[in-house]
């Protein structure tokens, strides 16, 4: 560790620790998840970056949306995202969450994930190589460093908008709003 890093640790322990300890939610959303096991296990070893899979959203701070998002999955994704503790980061993995990908004309998939939850970064590809996850992680580090990975703040501030978008697709949601809604948008 150089001196620069130590002074950073002392100045901003929250950012530094958040950077080097990204716990990913073990959530299989689509075909992209097939690329994740090699990343976590012996071949690519994500643990050396501090990335480990955890079993519940309560413990996670990194959400990988690995693949296409059907309407049914979206419900679970929103629920899990809301249960993750702040600060939390979302990375869309593959083309499908970005713009629908090969399912661009499907009646049952979500075309733009960032309408429903804030996404901090995207990995393009169909599906991307495992190495791309490391590129994403290191890129996320820079974003965190610069204070640009603020998706969760955006979600808090624009919650009404997100909630309205969610309800447009999913109908009425069973769970109460995460943040107080001042104006119900009607």
């Amino acid at each position, binding site marked *: 560790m150089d001196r620069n890093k130590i002074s950073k640790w002392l100045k901003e322990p929250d950012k530094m620790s958040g950077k080097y*300890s990204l716990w990913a939610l073990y959530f299989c959303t689509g075909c992209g998840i097939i690329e994740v096991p090699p990343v976590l296990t012996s071949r690519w070893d994500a643990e050396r970056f501090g990335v480990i899979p955890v079993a519940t959203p309560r413990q996670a701070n990194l959400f990988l949306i690995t693949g296409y998002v059907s309407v049914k999955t979206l419900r679970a994704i929103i629920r899990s995202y809301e249960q993750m503790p*702040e600060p939390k980061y979302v990375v869309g993995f593959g083309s499908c969450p970005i713009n629908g990908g090969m399912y661009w004309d499907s009646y049952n998939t979500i075309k733009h994930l960032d309408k429903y939850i804030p996404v901090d970064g995207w990995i393009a590809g169909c599906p991307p190589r495992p190495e791309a996850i490391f590129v994403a992680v290191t890129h996320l580090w820079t974003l965190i460093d610069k204070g640009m990975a603020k998706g969760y703040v955006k979600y808090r501030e624009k919650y009404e908008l997100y909630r309205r978008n969610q309800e447009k697709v999913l109908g009425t949601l069973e769970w109460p709003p995460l943040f107080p809604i001042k104006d119900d948008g009607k």
Partner: protein
Amino acid sequence: MVIKLIALPLIAFVIGIFFLGLFRKITARIHRRYGPPLTQPVIDIIKLFYQKSVSHGRLFDFGIIVSLAGSLAVILFLPFAGICPLESSGGLLVIAYLLLFAPLGIALSGGEAANPNISIGISRKLILSLGYEVPLILILLAVMTHYKTISIAQIVSMQQKTGWAVFSAPLFLSGISYILILPAMLGVRPFDIASAPQEISSGVKVEYGGKFLALATIEHAFHLFIGISLFVNLFLGGGNVFVFFLKMIFVFIAGVFVHSVFPRFRTEQAVKYLWGWPALIALLGLVLAVTVK
């Protein structure tokens, strides 16, 4: 006295956290990975303290505090290399009972969250603890009967005169049995049924996030320290700070080796194993300790 009281938990904390790091590093190396840095648990804990968390109620907060406080209290009663600030307060029996605070606290805390994964985790944890307590009690009784004392400090000092208990004729069977149940006590694989992340979403910790998880991690570190240091005290004859630490590392690494190559038992398989050979050997060990003077 006061210095000891402050120093001992700190030592335990450092060693426990070091063990957690070593645990991940060695497992990684056995998997032919590079593995995280040794300081990774520290980074994790710092991060967890900066994270927000949810609380399901007062008992949810209270339980985790009780759990960690119980472990911390055990450390004060457990000699580490002859440092034992509260040795004359009930001995091994008090330690055996104080060990209950940790699982009970976590169980209470989880109980308020109304998540069935937690209930299943608790149920598994209690069953497992009943499983390994049968041989463990036999082992502790053999040790206490042989040395005719319930004070753990005296047991250590007697071993320093007569040699390690695990190599002494009346106690070697008990020592073997202890080694057989040590993975179950530490909760490492094949006995990580209580916190199985793939089956029950890490069991009792499923609703923990942020500082709750940080405290639970520290509790886990303390638990590793206690389980191993108890073994070193009872069977490997203590020693000075350096020797004691070396012995602990040795036992710990053996545990990690077991952890990284085994899959997980089912609950009843674990109990059947624990009530089989380890209990039998422990029973023979107790008979040996009673008969051989």
